[in-house]
């Protein structure tokens, strides 16, 4: 088995490294990614982003408007999800919060269609199938709302 262990090891290393380079590094050369610029968050919104990460909001909410739904996507009114998201809008984000499942509406542009009061009510009371987050402190709640309002 000695020879096939060596061959298998080399094959796996080559396949994994090639796969990573092609799917996660080469896209850095794409013009849409290379020239990316995104507006920085305020200090309060940046703190709110970590509340978003800590509470796992990304489990139920995406932050990506796909090209195929940009025109007709519906949260409350047709098309209110906004324009399609582009790679550049995520520049510098760590971690990126694209999300993989929508049990709640997409939040890529939630700040453009929702008021501060609506967001506070949704977070404290829980609406439309969302659990309440009453246990957040006032400061954490304010930070989280500031972050969501910055998503435009």
């Amino acid at each position, binding site marked *: 088995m000695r020879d096939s262990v060596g061959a298998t090891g080399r094959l796996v*290393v080559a396949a994994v490294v090639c796969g990573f380079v092609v799917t996660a590094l080469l896209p850095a050369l794409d013009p849409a990614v290379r020239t990316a610029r995104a507006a920085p968050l305020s200090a309060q919104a940046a703190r709110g982003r970590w509340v978003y990460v800590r509470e796992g909001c990304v489990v139920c909410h995406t932050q990506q408007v796909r090209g195929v739904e940009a025109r007709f996507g519906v949260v409350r009114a047709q098309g209110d999800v906004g324009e399609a998201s582009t790679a550049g809008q995520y520049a510098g984000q*760590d971690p990126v919060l694209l999300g993989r499942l929508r049990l709640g509406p997409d939040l890529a542009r939630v700040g453009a269609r929702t008021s501060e009061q609506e967001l506070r009510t949704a977070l404290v009371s829980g609406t439309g*199938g969302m659990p309440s987050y009453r246990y957040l402190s006032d400061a954490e709640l304010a930070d989280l709302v500031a972050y969501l309002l910055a998503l435009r």
Partner: protein
Amino acid sequence: MLAWMFTDERWSSVRRFLYAGALWGILALAYEALAAAQRAWPQVLADVPWVSHGRVVATGQDLWVFGFLSHLLVGAALRVVGQGDREGLWSEPLANLGLWLWTVAQVLSWWWISTGWTRGRPLGEAPWPVDLLRLTGALLLLWVVRNTLVRSPRRDPALALVFAAFTGLPLVLVLGKGLFWPFDNPYHGILDALSQAFLRAGLVWLWVVPLAGGVCLYVLSALTGRRGLSEGLGFAALFGLVSFGALAGPAEFVWGPVPFWVQTVGAVAQGLLVLPVATLLAGAARSLEGHWQSLGDHPGVVFVLAGWLALTSGVSLSALASLVGPSRVVHLSLWGEGVRVLVLGGCAAVAVGCAYLMTPHVLGRSLASRALAWRHLWLLVVAWALSAPALLLAGLSQGAAWATGTVPFAHAVQASRPLLAVAWAAAFLVWVGQAVFAWNLFLTSDSGEPVPAAEQELLPVAGS
């Protein structure tokens, strides 16, 4: 104490990995059931921060992949690797050290993610100390497996698959999580999203699936005395699995904000993954030719076959969903959860089946209760029959509602609540089944009938 922890007793690490997998499985599936309940009834335990929905899902996923599946499959894999030259593992103490490192990592991970210390990267939430413990354990296990296999005189594609998985895991952790720079995330922006996708695809296609495939091919051929795949076909399946698996990550982003050519690469690789998975299923079935009538004696064999069927269905549905047309409808919907139930649930069934089949060869005792094992199987089959269609249907209905452009988002989600309640019932059944499995293992080690030493060997197929 140290002598007990790092004992060189033959198969001690295998036994401990199997027990640990069974126990982590109870916890992982409890989190899965709680998450399913919270999807159907969002206010369940919403006021308790450490079991709020976002944290439950993150903790549960970590427990599933690193606690339940990894421990159970590594236990089974070490057993088949150690059988190659009938001398056991190259170093039991090192394999035991790997087990303890992973156990500490899993406890810390469970605690920290529940209390909100997370890197916020789905399936890569664990903070850096956990990563380093896991990576060290993975490298130790790779070293043990490598040194054990080079002593074996036989070339066996099943063992090569196992070795591929042990080689793949450290690479996936180092590259996908950026562990070459462990204290911070080296990726930013859309490259972070792509490295996250690489990590998730890698954990499934470069770690869990090759491990499950290698173990099940070896165990079935050893039991029946018939090798299911020729050497060429076996190595071709291995090549397909690692090559396409390493490229499949971006299939998550079809229609999304990543360059179009990357989406295409991911979608094509995802589609091609059907080939190696179906090849391994065919190999498992060929091993059983002439032995189908004796399936009733081995619930473990039925577990393994059911698991590979579920996995093959899952990867086929996943390939379908990454095509441009269907992905317009089902992408980002509950369809993905239905596929996850089939893929990861299928791997879990293979792992559990191998554990049932290996009890005489690991514990030195016959399985305490075949009746309990059959009940476990039926619980799992009923759970799959409920949850996979419910989640796939919920995904289709959500996607169709979004595509109309007239149904408000909240209404589409509300309409899927009854199906989510069905998925919760299924998750609860799977949890009960896991408890039955752990109880049966305990009964076996406590009061199972001893097996003669000669029958404890898991003999490789002659001439292979």
